[in-house]
């Protein structure tokens, strides 16, 4: 790890060229080489939606669908509204075994998700900060100005700025939770029996296959408690899945 950190500055300049090189290899259909290069970027501690997306594409081309899904999901996490990512994810999801019908959700929840997915947590944070600054400026105007019109205008826009600040703080928090705390994983074992409790001898609940996405609820020993999109909950070994 120390080595890696030591090497970081040396690579930092080369990362962008590595990215271009990988893209060129992809265009020449040298998918495995491209995968190696994309992975090297990630191993060096850098990420971007584009890198994940392109890596997902390369895995798709060599028919490694679970890996493709994993990196598309990673890309989606960074850029939830990227049309290409969503399209390719949809395509690759038709190639896997399981078709899990998601539970219908309350429309309000969908709206809320759509709102916080507009930007990532960093952007939401900046929006909050900027509107906060604007709020104080308006407050100063309000306090300093002798003119009644300016005072009125700055009062109302100040209230609006404060509202925007609070809202985008909440959205940033929500998005940050999704990005940072909400763990999801992709199944990498071809056929995986989900158990009723974290033990091999417990009852078999259902079977999922590689490429399926699960939500991690809890971890006990070498086991994850997971929930699939249809709402079913069970336990599976940690090494059977890879976290997004």
């Amino acid at each position, binding site marked *: 790890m120390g080595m890696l950190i030591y090497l970081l500055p040396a690579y930092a300049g080369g990362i962008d060229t590595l*990215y271009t090189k990988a893209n060129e290899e992809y265009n020449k259909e040298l998918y495995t080489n491209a995968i190696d290069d994309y992975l090297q970027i990630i191993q060096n501690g850098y990420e971007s*939606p584009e890198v994940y997306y392109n890596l997902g594409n390369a895995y798709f081309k060599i028919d490694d669908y679970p890996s493709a899904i994993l990196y598309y999901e990673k890309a989606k996490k960074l850029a939830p509204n990227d049309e*290409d990512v969503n399209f390719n994810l949809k395509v690759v999801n038709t190639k896997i075994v399981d078709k899990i019908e998601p539970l219908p959700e309350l429309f309000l929840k969908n709206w809320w998700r759509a709102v916080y997915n507009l930007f990532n947590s960093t952007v939401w*944070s900046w929006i909050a900060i900027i509107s906060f600054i604007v709020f104080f400026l308006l407050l100063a105007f309000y306090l300093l100005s002798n003119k009644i019109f300016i005072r009125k205008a700055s009062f109302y826009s100040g209230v609006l700025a404060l509202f925007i600040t609070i809202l985008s703080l909440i959205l940033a928090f929500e998005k*940050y939770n999704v*990005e940072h705390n909400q763990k999801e994983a992709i199944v990498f*074992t071809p*056929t995986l029996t989900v158990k009723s409790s974290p033990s091999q001898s417990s009852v078999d609940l259902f*079977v999922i296959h590689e490429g399926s996405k699960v939500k991690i609820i809890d971890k006990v020993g070498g086991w994850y408690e997971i929930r699939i999109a249809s709402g079913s909950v069970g336990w599976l070994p940690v090494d059977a899945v890879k976290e997004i």
Partner: protein
Amino acid sequence: MRKSVIFILFILQIVASAANAQNVVFSASARDVVRTGERFQITYTLNADGKEFRTPDMKDFMVISGPHTSQSSSIQIINGKVSRSVENTFTLYVVGNKEGIFTIPPATIKVDGKEYKSNELKIQVVKSNNQAQQQGNRGNSNVNRGSSSSNTSTDIKDDVFIRVVVDKRNPMLGEQVLVTYKLYYRVNISSPQFNKEPAFPGFWVNNLLKDIKSYKQYEETYKGKRYNVAEIKKYALFPQRSGKLTIESAEAICQAQLKTKAQRRTNDPFFDSFFNDPFFNRYKTVDLNLTTNPLTINVKPLPSQNMPAEFSGAVGEFDFSSSIDKNECKTNDAITLKFTVSGKGNVELIDKLNVKFPPDFEVYDPKISKKITTTQYSVSGRKTFEYLIIPRNPGNFKIPPVKFSYYSLKKKKYITLQSPEYDISVAKGDGSSSGVVYSNINQKDINYIGTDIRHIKVSETHLKPIGVFFFNSPAFYLWLAAPVILFILFVIFWKKEFEKRSNIALMRNRKATKVAHSRLKKAHTFMKEGKKDEFFVEISQALWGYLSDKFSIPLSNLSMDTVNETLKNKGVKEESVKVFIDTLNNCEFARFAPGDSSGTMDNIYNEAVNAISLLESELK
């Protein structure tokens, strides 16, 4: 009665034949009383050659067979006179199903073109009462006398009967019981026909003599008598429940040939001896109803302790084996898994094996083939369960051992046999085909053949370190706190400044009068000294300075107009403003006016003092 009829007929016949050889007699005979369902004979006798025998219309009876024709001719030599007599017999086998007294109308026959009628018959059909005739004598059959002659009844019961023999009376549940139906006979009999096959409720039955063409026959001594014995039926029974099980009685009919005891009584020793010769003995075919008695078998339950969970009722001695055709395959390849149970006992009753297949396998119902072999004494066989399984997805799978349990009669305990565990590794089949299979089978609604993912993004990317979030980072909080801190600082600074400024103004305001007075004082001194220029400067400064201090207006901004406006704004009366302005004007005017100015100075001084004190009072 019958006997006498026969006798009379006989006499008649003899008389007739003696008197006239061609005196045609056509008569019918049958038993007077029969039971329902009992087969009996109706015999028509004709002492001539007849044609066109017509059976009567028998609506109350059912003709089973017949008419059977038999002919016998005899030559009589009586006192040197030779006469030939012919006897034609037509026999019908009939069953009466209804109770009551019925009349059988005459039958007709033609002899030499002339029609003859037989006599009518009255037959009483009574209810059959089998139970009453059965005796508790186990293993011994009852013999119903089915024939016409009463004089045979006592002997025949002992001459022909069926015994049911079991090899054990107290078997375990599922243990084989051998049941043999033995026919004992001392007279000639035909093979018995069962009109009521033996029934074994509560047993699984296996007929051991299914394929046997001829019966096993031997001689046996039973109750001191020598019998021919034929094993006419033999079953292997497997009790299916514990408790008392009954083998129900069976009924059979056979025909026995019995020697008639009727002998002609003649005085001729020669004829007597001749007719008593066995060769000439008359045999009568007699129908016998043979009924076996029901038999109770006490079935003991299997021990309940140590009974394995997989036990499903197999009792006997078994082998259990299994085989798999391949351990490695690709997805969608079929694998055949075979389990075989073989041995002695109730093989056929082994219905299923509990095979736990990995949940992801496609498993079809097993093909069950069985081969049951029966010998004279036992049932053995083999049952094969062939499972066809198709792994649909790649991976490593295990088929856990399959257990088969049976109760061993030899060892008197349960025995569990186990198949080995099978490891199956399934490789991915042809990538293309399996992918197509998936999308075709599972997701028919979308046909993505010909679609592809979108191309990679080749535009420049903004790489950022992994796992670094701005939100919740120190920088974020710093940025968030910055405007607050700045604002607080600003407010503090601004407030201080404000305070400072307002203090200066207040001070100047308060000092304004003082300053003005000290200036006026100075001016007064200058006036006394006659220093004209200094005096006016002082006066002017006192007036202007007063305004400047009082209203915090810089001196440079002051002019006649601003003074006018400011004072008016401050609510100073019009006249007072005018006084002040006049004073300023006079001062300016007097300052630059030539000539003696001592009087003017005095006036100006008084005016200035007056104006300031006027403003002072106004502004209070």
